[in-house]
């Protein structure tokens, strides 16, 4: 008898089951169970890394979309983020929660790189200014209010420094705590708090609310 093992093709595993009998759907929805174990496994098992990828793809994509205001560009940047994650994963030593923050950190750098390289900020600003007028003029339906708010937000966000944009996005759209944002940015929670305040001051120049909290459309 010759010792051998093979037929990976026979083990093509399209299910979401990962090593150790943890169901990935449960895992993705869980905040507690066995995370560090999976990170450990992912270092030696690319299959597990792929499952982690599936868990975090949505979050990274949404973060990129909120930062870039364009889904196609967001997909490109999301690709960059995960390819960099693969490249550098051997250096990552942390828990699953830290892994998520690590991905946000890579995403933040990738988004900022993209903005710098393409000068998209300026183009977007110009475009947004034009779009607000056309979108709001043409639409009278219930979506009109959403379109106006969305365009207003884009315009306001793009006037901020990239770091402030990051903080606003992580705080209000990804719902991260200040401590988590601090970890992403490699900063202290106190610093993030004061930068958040400055970012809000910047936003206030463009988005104002009346006493009832309704934004004022000027």
């Amino acid at each position, binding site marked *: 008898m010759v010792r051998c093992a093979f037929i990976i*093709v026979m*083990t*093509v595993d399209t299910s979401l089951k990962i090593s150790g009998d943890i169901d990935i759907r449960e895992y993705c929805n869980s905040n507690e169970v066995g995370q560090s174990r999976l990170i450990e496994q992912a270092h030696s098992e690319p299959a597990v890394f792929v499952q982690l990828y599936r868990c975090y793809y949505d979050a990274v994509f949404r973060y990129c979309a909120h930062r870039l205001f364009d889904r196609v560009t967001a997909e490109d940047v999301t690709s960059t983020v995960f390819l960099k994650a693969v490249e550098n994963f051997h250096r990552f030593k942390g828990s699953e929660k830290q892994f998520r923050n690590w991905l946000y950190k890579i995403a933040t750098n990738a988004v900022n790189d993209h903005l710098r390289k393409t000068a998209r900020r300026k183009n977007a600003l110009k475009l947004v200014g034009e779009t607000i007028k056309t979108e709001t003029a043409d639409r009278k339906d219930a979506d009109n209010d959403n379109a106006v708010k969305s365009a207003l937000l884009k315009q306001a966000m793009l006037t901020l420094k990239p770091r402030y944009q990051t903080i606003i996005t992580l705080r209000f759209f990804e719902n991260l705590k200040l401590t988590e944002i601090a970890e992403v940015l490699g900063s202290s929670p106190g610093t993030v708090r004061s930068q958040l305040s400055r970012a809000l001051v910047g936003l206030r120049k463009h988005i104002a609310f009346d006493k009832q909290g309704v934004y004022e459309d000027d």
Partner: protein
Amino acid sequence: MTDYEKQFEKFARDIKFDDSPDYSHRDKLEKKLLNAMAKHSPQQINIWRIIMKSKITKFAVAAVIIAAVVFSVTLLDKSVTTAYAVEQTIEAMRSISSIHAYCTDWDDSKGETWVQIKPETGEEEYYYADQGNLLIVGTPQKTYYYYRDKNLVRIRNEYVPASEVRLSGFFEDMVKWVEQHDGDIEFNSQFEEDLRKEIIIVHVYVPAQGDMEEKEIVFRVDPQTKLPIDMKAIKTGPGEGVKSVDSLEYNVPIPQGLFDFEIPEGAEVVYE
């Protein structure tokens, strides 16, 4: 939290963004990651566990891996060194320019696959996989997916490989994987009535481990060509590969125009 912060939080929460992920992009990126991991991971072999999902992969890779394994088995049977066997197998793999396979899946659906391989590199170049309702044609420039029931064609402007790796590299990686897992392979010679000749029966057993279920597979090998004739899975996990590769042919001239995909009349076309 200041009043403005609260107001802005509500304002942000109420906005409906166009931020729903597109899962075709996710799947596409997943494949890129697999390729990237193959380059970066010191344990490249594990990528085999997560080859593509489609039947084409199962079929095409099944054909190839069986070829690779049987090469090694037959060479090892002649008591040559493993290294030499590997080398010879790689060389032998490179001599294959096409594979034609008929397969049966666990739902008894039939599939036919053709793969054209660059003999000098072992890399696949074109493939054609007819899986009944779904036809996939991979060409260097584009990959076409035709869903017959919906008369829908999806086109990707790239070659989506049937196998995630170079076929010539497949065997090298597999040997490493063999070293890491405990399994057994037995082979015997017996006269097969249906073929009317003596053939080699290769019986493979891999115990369940981790997320991989127990597997027992038998394939028959032509002692003259050192190539497998067919394969049958006796035990395997659900969704883990085809039930059988009913026939395998090598270096058969590929029908002219097989990889020239033409969009059927009236079909809806989606570019991705």
